[in-house]
């Protein structure tokens, strides 16, 4: 399948020239095309931000919700129709700041969705304030003397919560990022892909070159089923590892746990009205209220 099936044709794109978002969008479409996922079977859910605009440039089913709240609707869409492929895609501020609580509890819930985070370590859309992942010392018009808060470490947090799939990628490397995204989408259960994304306008510290110089790929010696090793990798700071940190295939998904719903894997809208069941329960209520 060709990735163009997801392209919108000629549209205005609100991103700055040179922004890492272009590469992520293209890579994601490529990954979906290679997995033969049809636009009709896909829903891309986002919050608010530059990253969260990505679905606007995507020819598929799109749900653009509240700032910080992409995960709730994504979980619900998957629960209502488990046959859909659901991707929740947003920025670092959206997912880890405003939506931080949802991030934690969605990992615990383990829905079979893919969570893609464009991590540019800054609030892009609101013009350059520090985000939860901004590094210590990062100066902005608000953090005039530099950030002094410990940066949020999404991978370490996800591994601590035994998330079922945890990976990090870099927007500048389309080939490897595509492979990581493909594995995340085919993985059964919640999959986090945190993608380093250069913001050419508001993050002059973590540039394309900076990411190249300060990252390396995990090699075959890394066992993604070893949670302790995965955690160790997640808290490395001298150079930041990329790749698949942790996988736990043994967890039941939210949809499986809900049971009744997934026994038939039948989406909610396909259920037919069972008149007998309905009238029985009405009768039951009547007798209770007597």
């Amino acid at each position, binding site marked *: 399948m060709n990735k163009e099936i997801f392209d919108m044709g000629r549209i205005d794109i609100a991103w700055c020239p040179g922004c890492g978002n272009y590469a992520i969008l293209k890579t994601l479409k490529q990954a979906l095309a290679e997995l033969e996922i049809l636009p009709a079977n896909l829903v891309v859910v986002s919050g608010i931000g530059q990253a969260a605009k990505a679905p606007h440039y995507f020819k598929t089913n799109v749900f653009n919700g509240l700032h910080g709240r992409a995960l709730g609707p994504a979980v619900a869409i998957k629960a209502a129709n488990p046959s859909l492929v659901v991707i929740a895609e947003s920025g670092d501020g959206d997912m880890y700041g*405003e939506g931080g609580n949802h991030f934690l509890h969605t990992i615990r819930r383990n829905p079979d969705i893919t969570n893609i985070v464009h991590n540019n370590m800054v609030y892009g859309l609101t*013009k350059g304030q520090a985000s939860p992942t901004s590094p210590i010392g990062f100066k902005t018009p608000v953090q005039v*003397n530099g950030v002094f808060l410990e940066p949020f470490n999404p991978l370490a947090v996800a591994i601590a919560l035994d998330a079922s799939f945890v990976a990090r990628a870099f927007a500048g490397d389309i080939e490897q990022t595509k492979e990581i995204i493909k594995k995340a989408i085919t993985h059964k259960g919640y999959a986090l892909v945190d993608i380093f994304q250069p913001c050419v306008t508001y993050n002059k510290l973590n540039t394309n070159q900076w990411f190249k110089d300060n990252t390396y790929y995990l090699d075959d010696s890394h066992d993604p089923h070893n949670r302790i090793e995965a955690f160790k990798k997640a808290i490395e700071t001298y150079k930041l590892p990329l790749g698949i940190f942790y996988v736990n295939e043994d967890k039941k998904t939210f949809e499986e746990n809900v049971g009744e719903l997934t026994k038939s894997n039948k989406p909610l809208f396909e259920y037919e009205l069972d008149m007998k069941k309905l009238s029985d329960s009405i009768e039951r209520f009547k007798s209770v209220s007597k």
Partner: protein
Amino acid sequence: MSGNEAMAEAAVLAGLDAYFGYPITPQNEVTAYMSQRMAEEGRVFIQCESELAAINMVFGASATGKRAMTSSSSPGISLMQEGISYMAGAQLPAVVVNVMRGGPGLGNIAPSQSDYFQATKGGGHGDYRNIALGPATLQELVDCMPLAFDLADQYRMTVMLLIDGLTGQMMEPVILEKKSGRKLPPKDWALTGAENRGQRIVRSLLLGNGALENLNYQLQKKYRHIEKNEVICEQYKVDDADIILVAYGIAARISRAAVDMARENGIKAGLIRPVTLWPFPSEVINKAAENFRIFLTFELSCGQMVEDVRLAVAAKSPVLFYGRPAGGIPTVEDVFEQIRQLTFKEKVEK
């Protein structure tokens, strides 16, 4: 200095002790300005992880008796409503600035006045009110800041300042001065350390028999007092007017010019401009309605304040509405045209 920055400086001069914010357009200049100025003054500035954190930090700082504020724009203010309701229950002072944008939902960042209901009717759950101020010029905006803190402290409640993105970006000369005319009661409820005195408790949970009912009566008594004593409103060329515009904030600026244009064209128009949106200048409007006149409410919304104008007029005169939602800003000529058509219709009817 932009409106947003002038307002921030006015808050600093008014003795703001602690500012809490979260980025949102069109008020990011407030947060940026505060981050520098509050540090210079050795006061508290925090960029929060969300608006929920911001309003709860305001709640906490206020509980210690310090002057605390936050600013945001419509969607962020919606998120803060739970905290504002709790502060109303706990009777704590706070200043909240809403640089309004178009809604519902994410809407857009264009100037709007569609949060009037939210600001003036309480906004969150429960029987409570906030004082709501709707300044129309930058001078009035900076003058409203010390007033807002004083009102908040005097009545132990939230004072909400409503402006819009255009006012926030506007440049106008202003005179900033520390004005604190009011004699404020001592903060004998603040959590200041309990040495040599009894325990103090900040809460809005009242389970005891009749306790919540009592609190509500107490609040209502306070609100009636405010309605009687704290109304601020400007009347412009109202005395002999056949048509009275009612507008606040940015819409009032346009209306004032439209009134002048009408007068130049021989139409007797006037303007009633509420500065306090709650308490609403109902009496002023009711009095003006005694002689039959046409009231035209103009808002950058689909019609919210017009409901209060109708209640105030109490069917003594007709009340009409003109407005545009979500970023459409009518020009002075547009408003004048509305006035002109009304006089024309009136003549035909006569």
